């Protein structure tokens, strides 16, 4: 279940990478922005979880497009590494902006506590099931968008070959804005799902960025089905690592997965091109 939740921001990360060809680490702050946008909708406005998910998507997506336009777009001509480093700086600024507005203390969503379901020796948290359902719904909607709509297909075309897409009449800048909005919006949903399971604070995304990055790399950077598989692999590996290792070492799973992938299969599990 943790894997399905992890897959959502990993898809966001990989979508931005597929169209713009750089690693946008500011997705960490956008996960926190989504979590707080969902919190505002849920705890302050008193709306249910599904409305909070929409709020998380829109909040993170809109701020994602605006911050990309102001901070990263002017640097795109300077190479992928420059923009990636600038995205780390942007991430720090956004996280501190959240801290300025909401403070450091952890907050919880206004959802009722429910007793775990027990099936013999197995205990399942209803919230985790609900999170998995939200994650799968978001991914299904994304696949329908990419597979069935004209804009979704145009986005995939730009990811495949931006020069040819331009010749065929697609505005790459417009598709870049779309990809950033979609990618950061999905990051926001991912942040909220993590927050529903635990609590939210400004560094919520920062703590999971390694797992998100690992999921995208394991699946193959730029491959959306790959990010789903990578999310499931990393999520499962992190949970299983708890059987053998203390919880403090859970973060090492992501590092190990990146190391193994880059050593033995640099294209990732489902990646089409090495980069």
């Amino acid at each position, binding site marked *: 279940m943790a894997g399905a939740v992890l897959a959502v921001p990993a898809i966001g990360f990989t979508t931005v990478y597929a169209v713009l060809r750089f690693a946008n680490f500011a997705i960490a702050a956008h996960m926190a922005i989504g979590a707080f946008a969902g919190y505002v909708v849920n705890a302050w406005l008193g709306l249910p979880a599904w409305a909070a998910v929409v709020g998380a998507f829109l909040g993170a997506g809109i701020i994602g497009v605006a911050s990309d336009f102001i901070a990263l777009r002017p640097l795109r001509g300077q190479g992928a590494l420059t923009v990636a480093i600038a995205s780390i700086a942007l991430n720090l600024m956004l996280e501190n902006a959240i801290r300025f507005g909401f403070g450091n203390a952890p907050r919880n969503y206004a959802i009722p506590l429910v007793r775990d379901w027990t099936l013999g020796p197995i205990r399942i948290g209803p919230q985790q099931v609900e999170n998995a359902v939200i994650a799968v719904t978001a991914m299904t909607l994304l696949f329908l968008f990419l597979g069935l709509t004209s804009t979704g*297909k145009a986005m995939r*075309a730009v990811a495949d*070959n931006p020069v040819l897409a331009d010749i065929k009449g697609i505005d790459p800048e417009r598709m870049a804005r779309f990809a950033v909005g979609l990618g950061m919006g999905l990051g926001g949903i991912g942040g909220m799902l993590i927050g529903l399971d635990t609590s939210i604070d400004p560094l919520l995304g920062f703590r999971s960025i390694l797992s998100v990055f690992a999921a995208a790399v394991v699946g193959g950077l730029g491959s959306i089905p790959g990010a789903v598989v990578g999310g499931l692999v990393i999520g499962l590996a992190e949970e299983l690592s708890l059987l053998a290792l203390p919880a403090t070492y859970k973060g090492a799973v992501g590092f190990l997965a990146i190391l193994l992938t880059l050593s033995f299969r640099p294209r990732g599990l489902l990646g089409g091109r090495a980069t």
Partner: protein
Amino acid sequence: MSLLAIESLTAGYGAHDEILKGVGLRADAGEMVALIGPNGAGKSTLLKAVVGIVAARAGAIRFDGQALAGLKPREISRRGIAFVPQEGNVFPSLSVEENLEIGGYVDRAARRGRIQAIYARLPMLAERRRQAAGTLSGGQRQTLAMGMALMVAPKMLLLDEPSAGLSPMAAGELFGLIKSLHRDGMTVVMVEQNALEALAVADRAYLLVDGRNARDGAARALAEDPEIRHAFLGG
């Protein structure tokens, strides 16, 4: 009046890298024009300058009476020029049908009907409509790239070495398709490494050498010119 008129065109990739050094070319409506010449003569660069991928530094390119200078590739394609690059001319992860849909991106209202018309003309594409373009053979991919270009019902086709890397049979089929489009009235400007084949199908031809016009004239006359045969056709 010529559909495409290029005058004294200078263009290149880097700041000091001049590939075209004052090239001229014209193509009248309904004409098939071949561009031949040795490697590095600037043939492909000329096509890329027309569609806006390579910026022109000096000279003029006019299409249908209007200057194309400073327009982006997508704006030029909207004016009725369809370019088929030599490589990377399909979207490998998209299906054949999705490639055709993207081919018609600028004219979405007409897409359904045109895809059916292309399937009727090129049944091979209809049989593989769900297949990813990256899994097609070289000849099939080239056919798909032609189909994508036809999706906008262009006034002019620019083809960059359409037969490069194809088996003789696949190249023959492709030339058959190009000839039939020309018979239907399409204006075609084609860069070809296979000069003999190009001169056999074209109305007129231009010979470029080192970024300059070397010869031009009726394709048949050029094909019979002993100097050209000796230098470029190995005859």
